[in-house]
């Protein structure tokens, strides 16, 4: 069993620089994934992940054990993504849609091409719906649904109460359902109610 994040942070604070490499290897993909979902650009997601680890490394001495290392890292990455989105708005450059249209859409590989196509359409619709959410709801949905953080971790990462996280998530899911239904996605149809 490897060392926990907190043990690695302690080792790094004690001068064991290689411990940070383990943290990077452990969290890089997830941070990059979150950044990609926030920004819609693979290039920018890579940059954000790199920048987030650099910031974390520089601020490691000031890291306190009040929150988990992963929450702290997500907080840094989320703030970096917010900055980028804000800059993008002021510059009015490329839209998220246009950015992601150029990149590959990864869907589960299945032998049935028709199903693949349907799933790709669904993925595009989901992406559009999530990017159309207000920033607060979008962050919570992405961190919960795709990064699989606990409510407490999300609360620490976003520096808000846990109940606020749940409220934003509930509202976000409701918005998503409406948007997907409007796009003709019927997967969100109700399942048969379980027998009482």
């Amino acid at each position, binding site marked *: 069993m490897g060392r926990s994040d907190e043990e690695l942070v302690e080792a790094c604070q004690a001068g064991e620089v290689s411990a940070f490499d383990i943290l990077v290897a452990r969290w890089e993909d997830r941070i990059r994934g979150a950044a990609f979902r926030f920004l819609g650009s693979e290039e920018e997601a890579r940059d954000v992940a790199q920048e987030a680890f650099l910031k974390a490394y520089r601020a490691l001495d000031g890291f306190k054990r009040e929150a988990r290392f992963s929450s702290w890292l997500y907080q840094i990455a989320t703030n970096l993504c917010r900055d980028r989105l804000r800059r993008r708005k002021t510059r009015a450059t490329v839209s998220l849609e246009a950015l992601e249209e150029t990149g590959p*859409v990864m*869907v589960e590989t299945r032998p049935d091409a028709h199903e693949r196509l349907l799933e790709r359409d669904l993925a595009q619709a989901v992406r559009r719906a999530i990017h159309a959410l207000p920033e607060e709801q979008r962050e919570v949905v992405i961190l919960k649904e795709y990064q699989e953080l606990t409510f407490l971790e999300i609360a620490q990462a976003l520096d808000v109460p846990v109940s606020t996280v749940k409220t934003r998530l509930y509202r976000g899911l409701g918005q998503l359902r409406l948007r997907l239904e409007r796009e003709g996605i019927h997967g969100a149809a109700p399942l048969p109610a379980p027998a009482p």
Partner: protein
Amino acid sequence: MDCERVGDEGLRDGMMDVLYGEADAAVRARVEEHLAGCPACREEMARLRALRRDLGAWRVPVARPAFTPRGVVLPRWLAAAALLLLGFGATLGVAGYVSLRRALVAQEARAGELERQHREAVRALAATRDSRPVTVDSAALLASLDARVDERLRANESRQSERLERRLVDWEERAEAQRRVDMARVAASLSYLDGRHGQQLARTNELMGYVLEASQKR
């Protein structure tokens, strides 16, 4: 048909916990109890679960290795061919290197042999020179040198005298030509003067004749 507890935040948070598997036993029991008696919330939960399945369709691209060119994927046969070519090239390279190395060694051996032969030849020449002392006949050498100097001096004198003679002849010819030209000029001048004098004399005679004739008339 709406739930009568639609504004109950505690129930809503509990539903979120159950939906994402974070509910403890007490919360789970409370939510399930409510769902059992509330078709609206049961439907809501079912919709949320279906929505979560749909949301799973959006995936993150796999990170590309830094050294892979973007969007370029080699077919397997091409990759195999490239590997084969690479192997063939490597074999050729090794074989070439070995043969080049051999040629270099042979060349070095040949150069060493040539150098050795050269040294031996030099040594042999030096030995021959040392064994035969050199004798020089200085008197004969001096005589030969004198003869060559005399011969050169004679040839030089002869060339000088010939050149002087040629110049003297040339000068004489020029002086004679000049003398002739001068004589011709003097003759021409005298002739001219004679002519003038003759005319003058004739005119005087004529005048004298006129004078004589006039005096006689008188």
